[in-house]
C-alpha cells in the first residue's frame, strides 16, 4: 500500500500555505477547472443537470446496495468474453496477483494509463521489484513518476509543477535540451513514450466504470495513452476498486455526461474506450489476454457502514477539490496519501483507519460547496461530521484528533453553554479579565477591528496562531435584549 503520511497533515499544510508557487497553481483550479465546470452546466441548464445527478445517484445507490450481485454478473460476462477476473482483498494481494501475471508471462516492459487505485496499492514499486520497467503514460502521471512524487490532484496529478520545473525535470531525466515551451514538453513526452508503447508487453489501466451486463471496462481519457495502453501490448490488465460496477450499458450515458463536465468542463473527453475481453480471433490487433483485478482494500468496511457507504458513489471527477477552500489553500500533498480534498478526507480515514488520518475530517469549514458541486450528490459534509464524531467518541485515544487539553476545554464549553447562569458568570469573568489584561503594561493582545489577532497567553495563543478570536463585547445579547425590552415597555 502507498506510504501513509496523513499524520503530518497540520505540519504539511503549514508548509504548503506558505509556498508562493503552490498559491499560484491552486488559484488556477478555481479559475480554470471550476469555471469550466460551471460554464458546462449552464450550457446544459441547471435543471437538466440536477436530473442527471439524481439519475446517476440512483444508479450508484442501486449498484452498491446489490454489489455482490453485480460483481458476480460482471465476472461471468468478462469470463464469457474470454477475459479473466481476479479478486483481491487488499493491496498486498492485488500486487501479488500482478506479480504472478508478470512472472508467468515473462513481462519486461509495462505502460500504464492513469489509475488512482494503482497509486493506492503502490503497484509500480511492486512491479519494479519483479524486474518490470513500468512507464506512466498520462502526461501528468509521467511527470510525477519522473519526479518521484505522488499525485497532487485527482484529475491533474502534476498541477503543482511549473513548466520550468517540468522542463528541468525532462532535461535531468530524459537528457534532452532545456525547453520550457509547453507544446515542446508534451511533444518530448510523446516521443519518449511512443517507443515504450511499441516495446511494452503489458498495458495497465484503471477503470472509470465496469458494466456488469456486458463485462465491459470503460476508461475516459483525453491524451490517447489509455487507447495505446489497452491496444498495443499483448496483455492488458485492468485494475480497479470493486465499487466501479454499474448494471447496464444504458447506465453509462448519464455518467459520460456528468464526469467530463464535472472534471474539466468538457462536453465529452477526446476518448471513451470500452474493453470487453481480449481481441477476438479475427481482430486486426489488440491484446491476446485480458485480466481484470477487482480490489477491496478496505472498501467492504465502507460498504458496511451506512454512514460511509455514500463515499463509494464517487466517480473521481475532482470537482470537490477545485471548489474546496481548504484544498485551495493546502493543495493535494498535505493530505498525505492518494486521495486529496474533501472526498479524500473521507476515503482516506475509511481506508487507512482513523488512527492514521484523524486530522483529515477536521480539515473542512463544512461550507458544503463540495456537496453542491458533486455530480452524484454525495453528502460530504455529513460524512466529515460523522468521522469527527467517531474520532471524538473513540475509546482509543490514538483515533482522536484533539489532545487532552482541548478535549477538557470542549467539555467545559459544553457545560457552560448548557447553563444560562454559568454562561453569564463566565462572560462577566471574561470581560473582567479582558479589561485587566488590557490595562497591563505588557499588553498581551494585539487587536484589530474587534478581533484579537494575537494573544500571548497559554492556550489562547494556540488558538490565535491560526485564527482570530472575537473580543468579548461589553454587553451580552441577553443584556441588550433586556435593555431593549424595557425601552419598548416604556414607549407603550
Amino acid at each position, binding site marked *: 500500500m502507498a506510504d501513509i503520511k496523513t499524520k503530518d497533515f497540520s505540519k504539511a499544510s503549514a508548509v504548503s500555505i506558505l509556498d508562493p508557487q503552490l498559491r499560484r497553481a491552486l488559484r488556477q483550479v478555481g479559475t480554470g477547472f471550476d469555471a469550466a465546470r460551471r460554464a458546462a452546466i449552464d450550457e446544459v441548464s441547471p435543471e437538466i443537470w440536477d436530473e442527471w445527478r439524481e439519475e446517476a445517484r440512483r444508479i450508484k445507490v442501486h449498484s452498491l446496495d446489490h454489489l455482490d450481485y453485480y460483481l458476480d454478473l460482471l465476472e461471468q460476462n468478462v469470463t464469457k468474453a474470454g477475459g479473466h477476473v481476479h479478486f483481491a482483498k487488499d493491496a498486498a*494481494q492485488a500486487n501479488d496477483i500482478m506479480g504472478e501475471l508478470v512472472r508467468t508471462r515473462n513481462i519486461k516492459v509495462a505502460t500504464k494509463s492513469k489509475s488512482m487505485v494503482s497509486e493506492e496499492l503502490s503497484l509500480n514499486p511492486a512491479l519494479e521489484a519483479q524486474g518490470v520497467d513500468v512507464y506512466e503514460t498520462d502526461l501528468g502521471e509521467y*511527470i510525477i513518476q519522473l519526479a518521484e512524487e505522488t499525485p497532487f490532484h485527482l484529475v491533474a496529478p502534476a498541477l503543482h509543477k511549473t513548466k520550468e520545473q517540468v522542463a528541468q525535470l525532462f532535461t535531468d531525466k530524459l537528457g534532452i535540451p532545456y525547453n520550457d515551451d509547453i507544446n515542446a*514538453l508534451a511533444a518530448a513526452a510523446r516521443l519518449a513514450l*511512443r517507443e515504450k508503447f511499441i516495446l511494452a508487453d503489458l498495458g495497465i489501466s484503471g477503470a472509470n466504470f465496469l458494466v456488469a451486463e456486458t463485462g465491459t471496462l470503460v476508461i475516459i481519457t483525453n491524451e490517447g495513452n489509455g487507447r495505446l495502453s489497452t491496444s498495443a501490448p499483448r496483455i492488458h490488465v485492468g485494475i480497479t476498486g470493486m465499487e466501479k460496477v454499474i*448494471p447496464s450499458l444504458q447506465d453509462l450515458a448519464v455518467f459520460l455526461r456528468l464526469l467530463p463536465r464535472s472534471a474539466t468542463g468538457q462536453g465529452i473527453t477526446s476518448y471513451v474506450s470500452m474493453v470487453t475481453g481480449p481481441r477476438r480471433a479475427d481482430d486486426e490487433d489488440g491484446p491476446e489476454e485480458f485480466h481484470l483485478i477487482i480490489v477491496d482494500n478496505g472498501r467492504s468496511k465502507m460498504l458496511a457502514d451506512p454512514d460511509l457507504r455514500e463515499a463509494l458513489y464517487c466517480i473521481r471527477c475532482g470537482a470537490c477539490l477545485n471548489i474546496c477552500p481548504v484544498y485551495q489553500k493546502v493543495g493535494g500533498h498535505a493530505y498525505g496519501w492518494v486521495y486529496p480534498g474533501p472526498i479524500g478526507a473521507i476515503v482516506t480515514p475509511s481506508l487507512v483507519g482513523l488512527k492514521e488520518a484523524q486530522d483529515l475530517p477536521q480539515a473542512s469549514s463544512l461550507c458544503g460547496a463540495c456537496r453542491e458541486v458533486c455530480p452524484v450528490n454525495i453528502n460530504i459534509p455529513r460524512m466529515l461530521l460523522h468521522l469527527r464524531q467517531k474520532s471524538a467518541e473513540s475509546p482509543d485515544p490514538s483515533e482522536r484528533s484533539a489532545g487532552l487539553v482541548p478535549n477538557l476545554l470542549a467539555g467545559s464549553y459544553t457545560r457552560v453553554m448548557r447553563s444560562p447562569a454559568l454562561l453569564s458568570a463566565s462572560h462577566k469573568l471574561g470581560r473582567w479579565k479582558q479589561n485587566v489584561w488590557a490595562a497591563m503594561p505588557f499588553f498581551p493582545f494585539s487587536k484589530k477591528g474587534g478581533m484579537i489577532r494575537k494573544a500571548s497567553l497559554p492556550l489562547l495563543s494556540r488558538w490565535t496562531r491560526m485564527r482570530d478570536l472575537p473580543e468579548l463585547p461589553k454587553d451580552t445579547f441577553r443584556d441588550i435584549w433586556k435593555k431593549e425590552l424595557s425601552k419598548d415597555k416604556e414607549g407603550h
Partner: protein
Amino acid sequence: MDRSLGVPKAEFLDSVRRSLDRKPAAPDPAYPRLLDGVSSLQEEAQRIRARINENRPALLDRFAEVAEVRGWNVHRTSDPENAMAHIQSLADSLGVKNAVRSDQEVFGQILVDAPLESTGINVTTVSHGPDRSREFLRSSIIAADIGLTGADYAVAETGSVIVMPRKGMSRLVSVVPPVHLALVRPEDLVESLDDLFLLRRLEYHEKGGEMGSYLNFITGPSRTADIEQTLVVGVHGPKEVHLVLLG
C-alpha cells in the same frame, strides 16, 4: 492460464454480502434496464431509427456543428468525387507519404486508394491474412502519416465518431498516426448516447452476448492540460482530426 488468482470469487462475494447484510439473491424488484428482452429492445430500436430518419437533416447539421466545436475539421459533401478530391488535397497539403486505412464498407463508396496512389502515396489497407501478418500491419501503422477509417456510429449529441475494431478495423489506425481522417455516412448517425447504448445492447443480446472486444469514442484531437492547465493538442494520439461527412 484459466485459474483465478487471489481470493476465490465465492469468498469475495460472501464478504461483500456480509458488509451489505444481504443473502445471495437477484435485486428485487429487478433492475428495469436489465429486464427488457430482445423483442422489447427491437421495438425500442425501431422507434429510435424512425425518429432519426424523420430528423436526419437536422441531426446531421447538429452533428457537424458539435463535432466542429469539439475539434474536428468537418468537410460536408454528398458527392463522392468531392470527398475524394478533398482527401487528396488534404494528403497533399500535409505532405503524406504513407497512409493506412481500415477495410470498411465506406471505402467501397469512396475509393481513396487510386487517387492517393496516383500522387505517389503508399496506401496500406489494414486487413491481416495468410500473406500479411499482424506484425507487418503494425509497422505500417507506425510508419503512417495519416490513418483513415469509417465510423460504426456517429453521435450528434457529443460530436463523437464511434469505431468498433474487429476484422478489417484496426485499433491503432485512428490513434497512432499524427492525423486521423474519419468518413461518416448519414446512416451512421444516432441522436444521443442513449440511442447508441440501446442499439449496442440490442446487438449484444441478438448475438447471444457478444460485444466485440473494443469500442472507442473519438471526439476531436488528443488533448492534455496537465502542465499549468494549458491546453495542448496531440499528446499520444492525433494532433489533427478530419471528418468527411457524406451528407
